[in-house]
Structures are given as structure tokens and as C-alpha cells.
């Protein structure tokens, strides 16, 4: 299959594939049964949606009237759209500010709650609370915390350590970082749960054996935990990154993409074009761009991790 050889790299692999293809099909056809439900759902619901979106990207449609064929106009607009460029920059900044910190923080939390202490389940549930609190409530709370005056809660704490008060969401430079902190706080429980699953798969014996060999706590973490967590790490980093590229809630709920486009992310911009400017065709075009970006980023990420390695 051509796709196969592209993904794995040309040259060396192609020959092996061509030789074994019929053989591999004969040996491995049963595997297709295992993925059959996914394939069916994909073909029925997803594939059509994608084809439709591509089709729409060559049209102009406000969802109510007729679709008007406009050829490459949407793509031309894409190239000239200044606000889109801002959205791209914002999104990349956000991804860089979000993924590593949230992964580290949630790993820390997971390690913390992975101990046999009484009431530890309660703490796990409490850390998960922000994930299941509705965005409306969260928006309310954070708007309150981030009041841009000295008596706002966040500024109050800054004042305690002598830092002058900030404008937070009203400040062009601080709006996106504020939202980043808010998102880290509200999703760290989610990633914590994912890390926990991985941590719990590490057998106790490995730690015992390492301790007998004289390893201290930090060495245990570095030489036992981290390698054993590799598949989980890959998973979390990738999911966090893909999610970060599509951040939408806070701009939608709190800032309307402002101030002055400072918090306009790609998905917020797509939503704006589709449901506020009534340009579904252009929104589809931007979605295709976003998809391409995320795909490339994911494949790059994949390249630097050992993707298919089993631990033992």
C-alpha cells in the first residue's frame, strides 16, 4: 500500500512491503474484524463530513440559502486574511504555553495522589472538579478572580508579594496567558487521571528491585517511572497538543476573542466565520488549514517518540 510506505519512509520499506503484502493479508485478515466498528462509523459519519467540508471550501454558503460556487476565492482570502494570521499566532503561542506545563503539573498531581494514603480518592475527585464544572460557572469565577483592579483576587495575591496589579483579561499581553493558566487549572485533573492509569500499570517489583540496588527517590522516578510511562507520555502529549490547537471555550465564553483579537484562536475564528459572518464555506477552508497544521505537528511529534515500541 502506498500510504504505508509514505508513513514509514520510502526506499527500504517499499520492497519488503511489496513482497509480503499478500502473505500479510492472508495471515492478518482477522485483525480487520477488530477494527470493523470503527471503520463503519468512520465511513458513515466522518468521511462524508470531510468530503462535504472540502466541497464547501470551494463554495460560499450562509447555511440558509443556496451554495454558490466560488472556486478558489476562499483560499485566496485565506492567504490575505490578517485576522487569521493573528489567530494562527495566538494558537501557536497557546500550544507552546499550555502543553508542557499542563503535562508536568498533571504528572506531579498524579504522582502525589498515587500513594496509599487515607482519603486519597477524595483528593483525586476534588482535583477533577474543574473538569466537570460547567464553563458558564468557571467563566463567572474567573472573571471575578481576574478583576483588573487592586481589589481583585488575583491582584490581591500579587500585592502580597509586592507586584503591581495587572489588567489580566483587559490587557492585550496578558489576556492569552491568563486564559492559559485558567485552562491548565481546569484540565489538570483530566490529564492527572490519564497519568494515573499509566502509573498504575508499573509493577511494584520494579521499584523494589531498584531500591534494593540502592536507588533513591529521584532515581526511582527517573529510571523506573519515566521509561515505563513512555506510552502514556506519548499519548498525553499528543492529546494535549491536539486539544490545545482547538481551544475554544474561554474565548467564546469570556473574552469574545478580545481584547483586540488577543485571544482569538483558530477554532474561535472558525466559529466566528461560520455562525456570525455566515460564511460556512470560508470556515470550512480555515478548518482544512487547521487540520493540516495539526496533522503535521502530530506527525512531527510522532517522529521524535518511539511510536510502536512495546515496553518489554
Amino acid at each position, binding site marked *: 500500500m502506498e500510504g504505508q510506505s509514505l508513513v514509514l519512509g520510502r526506499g527500504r520499506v517499499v520492497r519488503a512491503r511489496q513482497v509480503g503484502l499478500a502473505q500479510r*493479508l492472508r495471515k492478518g485478515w482477522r485483525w480487520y474484524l477488530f477494527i470493523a466498528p470503527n471503520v463503519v462509523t468512520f465511513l458513515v459519519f466522518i468521511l462524508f463530513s470531510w468530503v462535504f467540508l472540502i466541497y464547501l471550501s470551494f463554495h460560499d454558503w450562509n447555511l440558509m440559502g443556496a451554495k454558490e460556487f466560488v472556486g478558489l476565492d476562499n483560499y485566496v482570502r485565506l492567504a490575505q486574511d490578517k485576522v487569521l494570521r493573528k489567530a494562527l499566532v495566538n494558537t501557536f503561542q497557546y500550544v507552546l504555553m499550555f502543553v508542557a506545563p499542563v503535562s508536568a503539573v498533571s504528572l506531579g498531581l498524579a504522582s502525589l495522589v498515587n500513594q496509599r494514603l487515607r482519603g486519597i480518592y477524595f483528593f483525586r475527585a476534588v482535583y477533577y472538579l474543574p473538569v466537570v464544572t460547567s464553563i458558564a460557572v468557571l467563566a463567572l469565577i474567573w472573571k471575578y478572580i481576574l478583576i483588573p483592579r487592586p481589589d481583585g483576587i488575583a491582584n490581591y495575591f500579587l500585592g502580597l508579594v509586592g507586584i503591581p496589579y495587572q489588567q489580566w483579561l483587559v490587557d492585550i499581553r496578558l489576556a492569552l496567558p491568563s486564559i492559559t493558566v485558567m485552562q491548565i487549572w481546569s484540565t489538570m485533573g483530566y490529564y492527572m487521571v490519564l497519568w494515573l492509569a499509566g502509573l498504575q500499570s508499573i509493577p511494584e517489583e520494579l521499584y523494589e528491585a531498584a531500591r534494593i540496588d540502592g536507588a533513591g527517590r529521584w532515581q526511582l522516578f527517573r529510571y523506573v517511572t519515566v521509561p515505563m510511562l513512555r506510552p502514556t507520555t506519548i499519548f498525553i502529549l499528543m492529546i494535549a497538543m491536539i486539544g490545545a490547537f482547538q481551544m475554544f471555550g474561554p474565548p467564546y465564553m469570556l473574552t469574545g476573542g478580545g481584547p483586540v483579537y488577543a485571544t482569538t484562536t483558530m477554532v474561535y475564528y472558525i466559529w466566528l466565520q461560520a455562525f456570525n459572518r455566515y460564511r460556512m464555506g470560508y470556515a470550512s477552508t480555515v478548518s482544512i488549514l487547521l487540520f493540516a497544521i495539526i496533522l503535521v505537528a502530530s506527525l512531527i511529534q510522532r517522529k521524535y517518540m518511539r511510536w510502536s515500541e512495546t515496553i*518489554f
Partner: protein
Amino acid sequence: MSGEGRPRRHESGYRARWAVRTLLIYLLLCLIAVTTVGPFLVMISASLRPNFSYMTFPISLIPPQPSLDNYVRLFRQTAIGRWILNSFVVATSVTFLQLTTCSLAGYAFARGDFPGRDAIFWIFMGTLMVPSTVTIVPLFLILSRLGWVDTYAALIVPSATSIFGTFLLRQYFLTIPRDYDDAALIDGAGLFQIYRMVLLPLAKPALATLATLTFLGEWNSFLYPLIVTTKSSMRVLTVGLATMVVQEGGAGVQMAGATLTFTPTFLIFLFMQRYVVQGIALSGVKG
């Protein structure tokens, strides 16, 4: 699973060090807990105030005249039982379906060797990379043509599979040594038996995690059910509660609704974590 933390027993004075360390850990746990539980407490406090529509500073968490008035008004909404039922049906169905399909597919992608394996996986991964903001329209078109608008099918079937869950389980299966598979193979087991007898039992933490996240995700989902259902008999809890939100109205009822939506998820999370995930100690099984 205390991981790397426990001190060696033969050390002198370990008890004292252990006690201090445990205390510090609890302190840290509580400190973090305060930040995450704060908004939740505000929400509950607001739901107990009959006339809540604003916050004062400093926030008084204990309402001056607590009353269940908001909850009464909430439940006077006669359809609320139906909303809860719908949410529950959808969330459990989707969770069950996803546990099945994702573990089957995750197994195939982790262990299987078949043409197109990686390509297919990455095509599926594409579904995570297209924002639902735009796919909702063609998806709704399909559902409309299928005649599934305002049905449980529309709420459940498109979410029956999930590449997120498949990915999660794939990674988890990768941490299980192939030796177990091979042992079963030698005993004459087929692919499905290996899946069922060997890998699935070992994957309980991942399954419980997926179940938790999926259930909670479906329970809290708003925009998708809003668009694919209109009839009040098919309404889910999140959408139903939103129909009680009036501009400039008292937000106490809204807060009561948020608390109501939230409570089962909190309980389910606790249940999942305590009884399902923990205690699946793999000591002695692997290595």
C-alpha cells in the same frame, strides 16, 4: 501503589521521618484542593441563596439565609426527570459501546500486523484534528437523511467509537509484555481469546479511566445534543437546564442546575477511582 516513596524499614528514625513527610503531603494535597474546590463551593453556596445574581467581595461562602428554594423551583420543572433519564441513557450507552469498540480496536493497533495498520490509525486520528464546530453541519445533514433527528440513535451511534479511546487503550496494551500473548498462543488461543482472557483483564485501569472520561464527557455535552434533538422528550439535562436560563434573571436556579448536573459525575468519579481502578495491583503479574 506508593511508587517510589516508602522509606526502608530498617532505617532508624524512619517512623518520625515518615510521619513528617506524610503530614507535609497532606498539607500540599489540601492546599491544591482548596484551589480546585473553591469554585465548586461557590457554586453550591450560590445555589442555596434564593436571590443570587451577583457576588460580593469578600465572598461569603455561607449563605446568610440558606434555602432550598432554587432546587424546588428546579424540580417544579416537570420534565427534569426525563432530562436526567435521557442523559443517563445516552452516557451509559456510549460508555459501554466505547469500552467495547475501543478495546477491540486498540488491541488490533497495538498487537496486530495487517496491511494499512498505521495508515488507518492516522486517518482515524484525523477525526481529532477537525474541529466539531464545522463538522456538526454535515453530521446533522447525515442524521437528517437517516431520519435520526430527535432519536437516541443520533445521540449515541456517532459516538459509539472513539479514536481517543482507541489510542488510550493502544498505549496501555503496549505496556503489557508480549510474553503473555505468546504464552496464550502456545496454549492454542486465538486472537479474540488472547484479547478477552489475557489483555482485557490486565487493562482494567485504562478501561476504568476511559469509562470515567467518556461518561462524564457525554453527561456534560451541550452543543451536540442541542443541535440533534429538539423535542422536549429527547432533551438531555444540560440542554434542559439551559432552557431555564433567562437573561437578567436570578442565577440561583442556574447554579442549582449546575450543581445537579455535577453531582452524579462526582459520585461516579469517586466510584470508578476507588473500586475499579485502585486495587488492580499488578504486583506479581508482570515482570
